[in-house]
């Protein structure tokens, strides 16, 4: 299984995701933003961080970077692409995913464990996953997902909501919404479900000495589905 992680200037979760992908059986390559071609990959990951300093808007300059053309091509031909945190912001900036990520409701950076409910298992990412609720970690200042009413309808009709913030027993409400996201959305798919953008960082939860292990469940399941 081959994966590639794109490094933008300012990416800072690139090593973490590299460690996680390798740990769960991917042969991972790091790809520099100024490259044009992607190595042959089964999965492309846009990592967390502050690409290009998040100047202008989070993810906006990365959305116009050299490598991103190849990523868009890869995604449009059905290749699997995950954007985590800043990577999610980049995906919305490219238009591969609908909506935008605004500043958190309370205008503060939030770093903590959250629970998310898996809304759709009919895809390569969550198919066969045994759990309904995962405990993951968020660390962001702009994770407040927003889209227009029409977009929301379309997202819902096409079953594009991947994961939603909830509490330990799966209740999604204002209290379990850390950043003000519309409908508690923590992650979404494109219509075809080959592109996943999410704010939580599964790569920070991959052994029991860290904040938790549910990230391992996510990666193990993904590798299983790709075999």
């Amino acid at each position: 299984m081959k994966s590639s992680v794109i490094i933008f200037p300012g990416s800072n979760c690139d090593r973490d995701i590299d460690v996680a992908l390798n740990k769960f059986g991917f042969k991972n390559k790091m790809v520099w933003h100024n490259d044009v071609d992607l190595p042959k990959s089964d999965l492309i990951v846009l990592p967390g961080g502050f690409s290009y300093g998040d100047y202008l808007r989070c993810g906006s300059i990365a959305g116009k970077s050299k490598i991103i053309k190849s990523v868009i091509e890869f995604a449009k031909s059905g290749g699997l692409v995950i954007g985590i945190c800043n990577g999610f912001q980049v995906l919305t900036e490219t238009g591969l995913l609908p909506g935008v990520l605004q500043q958190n409701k309370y205008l503060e950076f939030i770093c903590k464990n959250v629970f998310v409910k898996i809304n759709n298992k009919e895809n390569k990412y969550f198919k066969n996953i045994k759990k309904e609720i995962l405990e993951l970690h968020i660390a962001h200042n702009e994770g407040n997902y927003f889209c227009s009413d029409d977009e929301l309808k379309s997202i819902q009709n096409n079953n594009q909501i991947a994961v939603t913030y909830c509490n330990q027993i799966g209740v999604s409400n204002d209290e379990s919404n850390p950043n003000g996201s519309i409908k508690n959305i923590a992650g979404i798919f494109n219509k075809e479900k080959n592109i996943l953008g999410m704010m939580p960082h599964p790569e920070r939860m991959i052994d029991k000495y860290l904040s938790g292990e549910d990230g391992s469940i996510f990666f193990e399941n993904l590798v299983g589905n790709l075999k």
Partner: protein
Amino acid sequence: MMVNEKIAIEHGLKSEEFNKICELLKRTPNITELGIFSAMWNEHCSYKSSRFHLKKLNTKGKRVIQGPGENAGVIDIDDGDAIVFKIESHNHPSFIEPYQGAATGVGGIMRDVFTMGARPIANLNSIHFGSPQHPKTKNLLRGVVRGIGGYGNCMGIPTIAGQTCFDESYNGNILVNAMTLGLVNKNKIFYSKATGINKPVIYVGSKTGRDGIHGASMASTIFDEKIDEKKPTVQVGDPFTEKLLLEACLELMSDKSIIAIQDMGAAGLTSSSIEMASKGNLGIELNLSKVPCREAKMTPYEIMLSESQERMLIILENGKEEKAKKIFDKWNLDFAVIGKTTNSKKIELTFENKKVAEIPINILTENAPIYDRKWKKTKLPQKFKFDKSEFKKLKVADVLKKILSSPNACDKEWIWQQYDHTVMGDTIQKPGGDSGVVRIHKTNKAVATSVDSSATYCYAHPLTGGKQIVCESWRNLISVGAKPIAITNCLNFGNPEKEKNMGEFVECVEGINEASKFLNFPVVSGNVSFYNETKDKGIKPTPSIGGVGLIKNYKKMVTMDLKEDDNLIFVIGKTEGHLDQSLFARDILLEKKGPPPEINLFNEKNIGETLLKLIDENLVKSAHDVSLGGIIIALSKMSIKGNKGFKLDKLKILMNKFEYFFGEDQGRYILEISKDNLKKVETILKENSVHCDNLGIVTSKEIIIDNEPILSVDELIQSNTKWLKEYMVQ
């Protein structure tokens, strides 16, 4: 402009210092030269009031690779790995402009660490604010926290520990101390000593602008009502550029192109170029026309004094310029050859083909003034006689709730949740515990680190206070199972020209030194911040100590949360019921007299080392040192963290229960152990003559004292977590 004494004084120099400059130069300096002198001879850069006393510090140890005098200290953590670490103050700028002040404080300390070739792996901070009721406090707190987060989060370095205190003595001068730990291969450490002549001097990083001019001089004076006018002296940070600079520098450091490297921090290009040349006993020639500038028409004076951030000065091996330039181009950073090393032992500056300064380097460094300032000893205050009959009116539950919800003892999650503390994927103990702990990537080792201060104790008796903070740092490391290795100190004080303040400094340093020697816990780096004074009101003496310890097998790390019902709870170390200067005395009885608790270094060492033995044998389920608020506050925090209650047996001692519960005697820890291990634990404690009281057991929810349920853990959590959140949204 003709330079005269008046202009020199406006630059923060004393008239006798100006005379000395003229005498040493055998002429009057020009304005650029005067600027250079003022930058090198101010308190912040020259340590002129403190150097005499700092020389006495214990800086040597088996694991010390580099002590004070470099960009940061370095310690050996085995297997070829070393930790580079330092703490630094950014107090004055943070008061004037909290976001940028704090952000650039964090940026500056990280640069000190990666200048030495180390990749930063953890950030910490110690921040002190005025009374919560003071009109400026809330905005300062908000700005500082955002600034620290804004910089550290963007760099992708986890902020894993810290402390926040409130006291009215900081109303006019807040403290922002930032600390960074980095990891380096011990054979690949980079230093700032230049060697060889005709070596190219390289400028890399951001362009030079007009920000931060006189920053270091501003940080060497007291504040008055015109501080808002000093905003331009505060630097503006760009963490994105620093992230690029970090990656570019580490890439260039992978081979032997670099001879010496120094970040441009306080006093910018001036101090970096002079320090490198001075350490190598060389001269340096710079062509200021080559310096990349952000603004048009900058003068040599401005270029030399700018404190624009994210810049480095490098001395390269000849012929490596092209290779180095390629790396900095890749990272989109400025790169310019701006000069060379010489054998003149002078700093020589040219601008637009004219010589604009020429000063022998030893005049700037070795001949910088050193003052053995007058100081006054602080007498140990008499013990205060508390009227214990008054205690009868108090209920333990009420006092407990009140202290837990007080600004200084309450939960600080609102703060550290704004710091990314898990990036890099190795944080195994996050903020809120005794120490933050990060693993050394891909090994079984971890480093624990903590930052502490106790201004109340230092104010009451500086000598005892100085000793106490070192011990507190030592205990915080031991509580998580780490062997303490070394410390860094940030010495925040008032005006050294006042005998009382100078005395506080001298005696705190003496206390730090005494404890550091006894515990074999050397000081490897640090920084001094004087003149924390506004309109004649200075801060309480506030040395902050950053400690670093090693955990050889991170699977043995201990946390403070209570783990399992029916486990036994012990306190080790003797309880005498010392209430003077305790939170109980100050916040409940409103009594501020009396001495701080005494420090017994022999017991401290013995108890700490014994606890490490217990931890090494896997006998400890949870541990927490007893500090502010005494036994019951310590236990409550363990209870809150573990979401468990506790049941305390009836006291078997002849002591008032408030003294026992809230006394702040030093050298104590609370331990949770399973019943099965009782014998083994008792044997080891006995063999090492460690005093131990059996307190009670862990329960599922209730807090039970003398068979009476007084509170639930939910009530403790509620008391502990509400104050700060409510305060910040009000």
